[in-house]
């Protein structure tokens, strides 16, 4: 780990259950560092999406602690959450595009929410659509786009704000292999610029395309660390000790 890397996410003994059901995530502890590329793998139903929901602050854990960007986000007041969410980019498994907005407006949405002026967002949004090969579909509504095109719009929306951490849930699930590689290259480019990337996938082939990546493996709600790079369990604050 280089000196410029800093711990931006820390999960400490996190558990998650929905209602009174059994825990879908148990005793999850890890740290994520800036400028790293992480894959989260596991079979369907292993809890990948649940773990990502905790990461992008769509869900609070049932137990344990989560720190992001140096702050405990479990006890964070509600009105402070948007500022943290704006530092992340998320590619949802089901894309979650706004149906009645054009591709352009969907990609521009994070910038508009952040307060970027119309004059300042036109060029970057157009560039991003160009990059994902959808410049000619800028005015198209999501319903008229194919699954792969919708996924590319979702990815463009996630990265347009140059987030500090990019969280992608099966981002290559609906695109052809050529586009999958191209999207991975985009993620790598962002990663080189300092963005931490977390990609959830069950595609083993994909892991090999980013050799320097770290791998987190989820199985039945439990996390393992096959590459040994998660600094598991996380470092305790103030002690320098682990565990």
């Amino acid at each position, binding site marked *: 780990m280089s000196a410029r890397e800093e711990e931006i996410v820390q999960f400490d003994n996190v558990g998650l259950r929905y209602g009174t059901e059994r825990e879908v995530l148990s005793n999850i502890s890890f740290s994520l560092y800036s400028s790293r590329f992480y894959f989260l793998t596991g079979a369907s139903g292993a809890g990948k999406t649940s773990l990502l929901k905790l990461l992008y602050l769509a869900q609070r854990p049932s137990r344990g602690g989560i720190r992001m960007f140096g702050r405990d986000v479990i006890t964070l007041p509600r009105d402070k959450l948007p500022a943290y969410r*704006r*530092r992340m980019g998320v590619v949802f498994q089901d894309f979650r595009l706004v149906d*009645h*907005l054009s591709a352009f407006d969907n990609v521009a*949405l994070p910038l*508009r929410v*952040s307060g970027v*002026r119309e004059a300042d967002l036109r060029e*970057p949004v157009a560039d991003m659509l160009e990059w994902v090969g959808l410049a000619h579909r800028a005015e198209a509504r999501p319903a008229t786009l194919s699954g792969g095109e919708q996924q590319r719009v979702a990815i463009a929306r996630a990265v347009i704000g140059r987030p500090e951490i990019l969280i992608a849930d099966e981002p290559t699930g609906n695109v052809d292999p050529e586009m999958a590689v191209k999207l991975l290259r985009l993620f790598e480019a962002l990663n080189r610029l300092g963005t931490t990337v977390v990609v959830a996938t069950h595609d083993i082939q994909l892991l090999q395309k980013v050799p320097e990546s770290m791998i987190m493996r989820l199985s039945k709600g439990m996390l393992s660390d096959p590459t040994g790079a998660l600094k598991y369990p996380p470092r305790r604050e103030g002690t320098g000790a682990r565990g």
Partner: protein
Amino acid sequence: MKRPPAIESAVDRGLAPFRGRRAAGLLPQTRMGGPMVWVLAIMVALTVVAAGGALALSNMVQTARGDLAGSATVQIVEPDEEARAAQVEKVQDILARDPSVAGFRVVPQEDIAELLEPWLGTGDEVETVPLPALVDVTLRDGTSRADYDRLGGALRQVAPQSRIDAQSDWLAPILSALSSLKWMALALIAMLGAVGAAAVWLAARNALGGNRDTVEIVHLLGGSDDQIARIFQRSILIDAVIGGALGLVAGIAMIALLGGQFAALQSGMVAGGSLLAVDWALIALVPLFAVGIAVYTARMTVLSSLRKTL
């Protein structure tokens, strides 16, 4: 806190708040528009009519009370015409000397006959019916009940068949009823406000439910509760302004129609219920209050619903 680089550069040039037309496109306007405009228009129209009624009744009661407060009528019920005329003379002497009396006027017999004409009719037979003598008395300001009783006693000493009636006494039940009507109108206004707020609450909840997915996406992209609430506020603001304007016009038209019909009665008491400039100004405030209540209710509804999510 460090911002993403793309936003950082935009910050230097100045950020624009995510609201107004640029944010409104997120929620299709039709979800809150349409029926809401007409519901608010009807509410405002009914409130304007109720407010106009309450103000008119209030004016009527105040005018009548003012007119009657210093007025009394001395009635001399003496069948013998000569004896009646003599008692009238004595009553005038007493009234002229009494410090509580500002002025008085003996009501001419012709006026009394005209007043009683609807009941007694006209003709020679009627002229044989003895009519009482009436004296309208204007009392000075500050005349107390004790002064009033003392005057009545003094009059009875010189004219045993005389009786003094404060006009406010016999109109008191009517004034009390009018006053009750005024309070009922005010209660009606309060209820209309509550019903209007409830309608907005339902509409806002429906609109929020219909846009649940969009709202959740905006949240996850870093949108704040305030930003989302403002989008709904803008939608209801437009509906409320249009509905309020329509309701105000309809309400004023109804007041004008009712006012014309009451004016045709040519009753002195009803004339006291005319609306003043300040009353019209208050009525014009009704749609502004309606807009305020609608926007506030929409905001509170959306914020309270959003607080139940993460």
